């Protein structure tokens, strides 16, 4: 056994395969991380757009001329879920853990998770889930 362990024949081959495996693993991790950031950025943009649009769509116009801004919070909550569901690309799923808002000042905050396929998912049914928090406020009194 000791003789076998001291035998250095073929050490270069083992070293080559070790380094090759390490390099492959590193490349895999870099690609996967890049893909995850790309997916997350895409989902985050859609969720932010949804919360912005939900606030914008549910502002109470009756008092805006008097420079009073009020948000219909319940309608904004429903709009957020509807807009996000409509815009989310195929393969992406999201959950809403909480949506909180205030009528005055008009603000809406949504928290939850978004799930998207991993870059190497064809080699195994894997997906990545990350949390999100998106917030929108409306201070526009220019009557637009």
């Amino acid at each position: 056994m000791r003789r076998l362990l001291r035998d250095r024949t073929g050490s270069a081959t083992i070293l080559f395969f070790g380094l090759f495996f390490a390099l492959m693993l590193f490349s895999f991790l870099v690609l996967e991380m890049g893909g995850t950031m790309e997916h997350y950025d895409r989902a985050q943009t859609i969720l932010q757009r949804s919360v912005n649009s939900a606030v914008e769509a549910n502002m109470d116009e009756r008092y805006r001329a008097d420079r009073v801004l009020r948000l219909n919070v319940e309608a904004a909550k429903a709009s957020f879920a509807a807009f996000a569901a409509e815009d989310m690309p195929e393969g992406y799923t999201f959950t809403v853990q909480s949506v909180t808002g205030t009528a005055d000042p008009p603000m809406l905050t949504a928290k939850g998770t978004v799930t998207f396929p991993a870059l190497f998912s064809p080699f195994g049914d894997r997906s990545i889930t990350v949390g999100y928090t998106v917030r929108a406020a409306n201070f526009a009194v220019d009557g637009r």
Partner: protein
Amino acid sequence: MAVSRKLSKVLRDRKGDAAIEFIMVTAMLILVFSVLVTALVYVTQVYNASYITRRVVRQIETTGEYNEHTVQTLVNELGGDALSGVKIQVEAGYCSGKKIQLRDSFSVTLTANYPVRIVQFGSSVISLDLPIQIRLAGRSEVYWK
């Protein structure tokens, strides 16, 4: 007859074949390296164009209107002027002027060229224009009365 014999002798002479082989292999390596560098720069330019398009889409989404001057300024700020023949085309259903109503969709298409210099004779350059086209969609976030 004597000429052909001399030529045959020269062709069969193996002196200096290593030098010729070295030159040919080096030339091939330089060619492969140049192609790889050009491809890498092209991919970088496509990635840059994609980023510029995403920023333009986001700007139109948040402002709710397409202002050609503002968009062109943003493109130049982001290094779009480094691309050759950059054109931004926005397709949208406008509600008034260049304003896009809340939740209405629009698309932004960026087209540009990446000129690859193949050979240069003095001031005349033979180049190949590789096209770049990025198309992204967005939705307005602004409610217009």
